[in-house]
């Protein structure tokens, strides 16, 4: 359990505020953040800039989870989706505030702040982004 604490703590900026990186050489946006641009390689060293995604995107594809891990029993059936953010980068997230039958590919979504999980009743609670239909 103690190993998970620094792991999640390191990811707080990305999970809370969608902080990624932008290559100062070619402009490519990455999420989660990268130390080196996968396109420019060593040319990007020292040029990777902190970049905050705007929180808006659309559903590329999705799946409905019926057989959930124990922590997610309360939420099933729930939707996991690959979302393309307006900045072009893709990420995987749970979709909330929508019935599985109402999800559509191409649907506009926006980030919200939710509980992602916890290390048991006495452990640390993890928070971060999930996506809901854009209002």
């Amino acid at each position, binding site marked *: 359990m103690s190993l998970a604490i620094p792991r999640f703590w390191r990811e707080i900026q990305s999970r*809370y505020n969608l902080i990624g990186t932008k290559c100062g050489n070619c402009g490519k946006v990455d999420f989660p953040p990268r130390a080196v641009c996968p396109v420019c390689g060593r040319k990007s060293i020292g040029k990777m800039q902190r970049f905050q995604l705007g929180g808006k995107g659309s559903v590329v594809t999705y799946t409905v989870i019926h057989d959930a*891990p124990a922590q997610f029993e309360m939420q099933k059936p729930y939707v996991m989706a690959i979302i393309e953010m307006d900045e072009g980068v893709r990420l995987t997230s749970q979709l909330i*505030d929508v019935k599985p039958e109402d999800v559509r590919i191409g649907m506009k979504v926006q980030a919200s702040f939710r509980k992602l999980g916890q290390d048991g009743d006495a452990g640390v609670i993890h928070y971060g982004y999930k996506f809901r239909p854009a209002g």
Partner: protein
Amino acid sequence: MKSGIVSYGAYIPRYRIRPKDIGVVWGADGEAMGRGLNIRAKSVPGPDEDVITISVEAARACMAKVDLDPTEIGAIYVGSESHPYAVKPTATIVAEAISSAPVLTAADFEFACKAGTAAIQTTMGLTLSKMMKYGLAIGSDTSQGAPGDALEYSASAGGAAFLIGVDHVAAEIAHTVSFTTDTPDFWRREGQRYPSHGGRFTGEPAYFKHVLNCAQLLFKRAGTTAEDYDHAVFHQPNGKFPVRAAKQLGFKEGQIDTGLCVREIGNTYSGAIMVGLCAILDEADPGDRIFAVGYGSGAGSDGFDLTVTEEIRKIRRDATPSIKEMIADSVFLDYATYAKYRGKILMREA
């Protein structure tokens, strides 16, 4: 120089349950209970929502209305009686989530249903004294009511955040006054899952004594009467108490209608008067005067005399859903789903 509300934001979970659907489980006439309490439905947090997520959503809604650098916020205080951690401040997570960290002070407040208004008063002092430019005061709860208890018909979830400062003030707070005594009307002991209360004792010697005394002190301090205000909002543990208190103070129905959200979403505890105040600010015009008196069991009341300024036209009130829109965006649950979402079903350990 006066301190006041620079921006505001609220969050109400979408899920709802009707008193009728609670009563049917416990062999009670839930509809009659709802009528008696003047509550048509109460909000229910989703299984992945708690005071931290509600506080963050309210804080983000507050910041979305203005163009302010979040690092200018010098203090974040979150008032609640349902902080997810007993030790580990909700306010630290809010600070990170709105990019205000790390150069600020933060703490969690507790005073039953008035911890959020206590946070407003604290940030007023900090900004008036120029210790900082802005302070963020949040009141938020996912209140607990024991299954079958009268509280279960009203205890709901929601929260609101107010950015307090002395520059670009959209609603000036000209006067604030508090009235506090040792009154054991409602409490929750350390380690207890559900609160306890003194039944009828929560009325006259508790809510009414504190709200009415605080309101009279505020009238005296401001040199006003009920007629001088366009809106009035009170702590709203049900839809009956604030209406009766308002009437005794000389307010008319039209003055309290906008802020009386309890009828549609139940008692959001630390969020209650603050969500009501947000509903008023959603519709207020410059020059409108607002009378606000909160209440927290234990017990105390905080009163505020506010005047809306021209700045209200400059903040983007439509950047986030209004209280009316959040109330309308609702999904009704049956009791079984409600019990599951609220963790009232004993599960195998995950």
